[in-house]
């Protein structure tokens, strides 16, 4: 199978890179071993919320310079301030062309609402989610918070209490109607996605609109879990039109309906641009010639290899098995690239689960063009993007999505420049 570029990993980084390459006339194949972490997304993408020294970031573009000293291997440092600003500035348009509509700016973080009701800084937020300008108040005085009766992955009381602290009055309401009763027969499957499937049906949207309208009282906005619009993208629009009130969809515990829809939308954009997406396959090994990978073999395709000029490794971190940890070692299992880690396991962790965990910064070593290193030497046609990279802590620094997107765009540029 001949392609211009083969991308290993089909999450945010892989898809971003793939879409970018396809748009510039390349023919790419993405091989993805299972669905990606977008399935647990909050509905927002973070760029840089916090520096390693703990200082909060308001303007990521300005703050990125300071990473040089604090985290010299950080992917953003490799990009440099100018490139960082240029790429970050292009993302809203990039996503919108792919059918994913987001708002936000790289020069000023805004705030998203968490499932706990708190406000957390972020970069881009999907249009149907709420992007708040300020971190200490909500844009409403009074909100009606709805939840589906018996839906355990959304906590109205938590949210209401936090909203109160932010000066917003709340009333709590329940959504309960017959189309959902059937789901309830199953003790586990009252999940966000299955509820969303119910609301993908027109007649149920109308019914939901009635419930919301009846219950909203004199509230200026309605907040409800993000359980609307899995297959359809216009559910929220329909609801808002029918109810006549701004409706804020708040993230739930996994699975994340907005995240899944974003993933599906990006995949569709990639495929519509002519890309080939192979799900549920794993790359097993590669043939090398000098400093190049010539062929890549996968589980499903056995003796028919993928042949491509360039290879992008975007396999994710530990969760996605882009990195594998053994008791005294961390390695990259697909191509065996060099990985930055410390051997002593005691140093991997902080015993406080909410403190920075050092293992989060482990990852694949690259040069400044994001070529992967093998035994210390850069491979000329192998690029690395996304969470598998070394040098950053996606959780503490709030930069996971940003690293994925920007490194993927940068890698695509490098490939296209050849």
């Amino acid at each position, binding site marked *: 199978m001949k392609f211009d570029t083969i991308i290993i990993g089909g999450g945010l980084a892989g898809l971003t890179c793939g879409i970018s390459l396809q748009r510039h006339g390349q023919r790419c194949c993405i091989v993805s071993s299972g*669905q990606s972490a977008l399935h647990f997304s909050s509905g927002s993408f973070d760029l840089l919320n916090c520096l390693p020294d703990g200082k909060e970031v308001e303007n990521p573009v300005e703050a990125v310079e300071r990473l040089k000293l604090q985290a010299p291997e950080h992917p953003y440092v490799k990009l440099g301030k100018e490139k960082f600003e240029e790429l970050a500035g292009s993302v809203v348009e990039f996503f919108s062309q792919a059918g994913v509509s987001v708002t936000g700016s790289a020069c000023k973080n805004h705030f998203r609402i968490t499932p706990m009701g708190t406000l957390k800084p972020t970069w881009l937020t999907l249009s149907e989610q709420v992007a708040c300008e300020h971190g200490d108040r909500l844009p409403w005085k009074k909100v009606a918070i709805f939840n589906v009766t018996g839906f355990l992955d959304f906590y109205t009381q938590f949210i209401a209490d936090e909203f109160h602290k932010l000066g917003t009055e709340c009333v709590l309401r329940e959504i309960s109607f017959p189309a959902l009763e059937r789901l309830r027969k199953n003790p586990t499957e009252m999940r966000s*996605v299955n509820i969303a499937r119910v609301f993908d049906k027109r007649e149920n949207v109308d019914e939901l609109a009635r419930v919301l309208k009846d219950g909203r009282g004199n509230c200026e906005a309605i907040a409800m879990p993000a359980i609307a619009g899995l297959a359809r993208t216009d559910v929220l629009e329909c609801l808002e039109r029918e109810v006549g009130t701004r409706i804020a969809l708040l993230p739930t515990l*996994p699975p994340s309906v907005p995240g899944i829809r974003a993933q599906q939308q990006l995949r569709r954009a990639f495929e519509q641009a002519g890309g080939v997406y192979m799900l549920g396959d794993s790359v097993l090994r590669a043939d090398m010639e000098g400093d190049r990978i010539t062929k890549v073999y996968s589980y499903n395709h056995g003796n028919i290899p993928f042949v491509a000029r360039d290879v992008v490794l975007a396999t994710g971190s530990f969760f996605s*098995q882009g990195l594998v940890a053994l008791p005294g070692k961390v390695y990259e299992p697909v191509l065996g690239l060099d990985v930055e880690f410390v051997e002593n396991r005691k140093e991997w962790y902080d015993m406080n689960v909410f403190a920075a965990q050092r293992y989060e910064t482990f990852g694949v070593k690259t040069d400044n063009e994001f070529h992967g290193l093998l035994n210390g030497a850069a491979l000329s046609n192998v690029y690395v993007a996304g969470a598998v990279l070394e040098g950053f802590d996606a959780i503490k620094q709030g930069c996971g999505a940003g690293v994925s997107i920007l490194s993927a765009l940068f890698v695509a540029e490098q490939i296209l420049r050849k």
Partner: protein
Amino acid sequence: MNLQEHNVSDNNFEQCIKCTVCTVYCPVAAVNPDFPGPKQAGPDGERLRLKKNNFYDETLKYCLNCKRCEVACPSNVKIGDIIQAARIKYSEKKFKLRDFILANTDLVGTLSSPFAPVVNGVLGLRPTKAVLDSVLKIDHRRVFPKYAFGTFESWYKKNEAARQSSFPTQVSYFHGCYVNYNNPQLGKDLIKVMNALGVGVRLLDKEKCCGVALISNGFIEQAKKQAKMNIEAIRESVLAKNMPVIATSSTCAFTIRDEYPHLLSVDNADVREQVELATRYVYRLMARQGVKLKFKQNQKIRVAYHTPCHMEKLGWAYYSIELLKLIPNVELTVLDSQCCGIAGTYGFKKENYKTSQDIGESLFRQIEACDIDYVVTDCETCKWQIEMSTSKRCEHPISILAKALE
């Protein structure tokens, strides 16, 4: 210390980190609340069953073994295998005549095929359907595949066997029950395509039904027996005669390659790589050796490719799609990969009819919305389901290819 370097238990259910992705892609859980869902029925349930076997729940029978959970799983957990293996290990289901009939596709085919016109007529009659429904619990709304008058095997032996052995390169064809009893034309189409590529098509010395229906209906011993016989015949072909084995049915190919070792413990490691789908074989031949097919300048046809579940699992839809793209004047749409709901004999059962049709609904809608002449797919049961549930006809990619050849 390397003690824990591979801390992955048998059937790897502990790699599940409860991310819930599988529950998003289960076609059954989405429509039938009686099914516990892949996470619960699979890795979560397995842990409980290992504690005590009374945690086995008969509702696992609602799993249609589409393996879409496995394709979606970011942890490589063999969720479908875990569920099917649990059914094999723990189910104490009693023998049902209905399941026996549905499972023994080759036996029933052998009995029906000589009387095809009669059988087809009778199966289509309302009174027959009423009896099937009430006595056997085979849903009366189901349209049965037609039996052919005379089997593919007998046709082949009479008309083709000698000619095919004269080709310098030869492959063995695992035709499966469907081609043999219902649609010999597909077998003939395959011969046409392969011959055009300079390859002769032989049959295995002895072919039994791949056993997929036996497995899903719980006739495991019989399935094992047939699997062993098939693997013996495949070994004879691949190892002794140096002839790889190709199939036109994605489910037969998948069953022989993956279900034999995973569910029946029938080892196929020495021949697995040599069992593949016809479209993959053709693709490779054309890609690697530059062999070209000569096409007629046909009238333009519009087709939509449907990816069967087992094709999704194999990851081989690519080959069928690429072949279709080669045919001049074929306008191809690729449908969203989703389950049609039939899953072999699953949809024939009265208790599953609604689930089956509910699962397929979204696919049917997409098909009806397309302006196409045919749906194209590699799976015969998907074909039945699509033809029964939509207004479109459904063809195998090899048949489309054959029709386009000069």
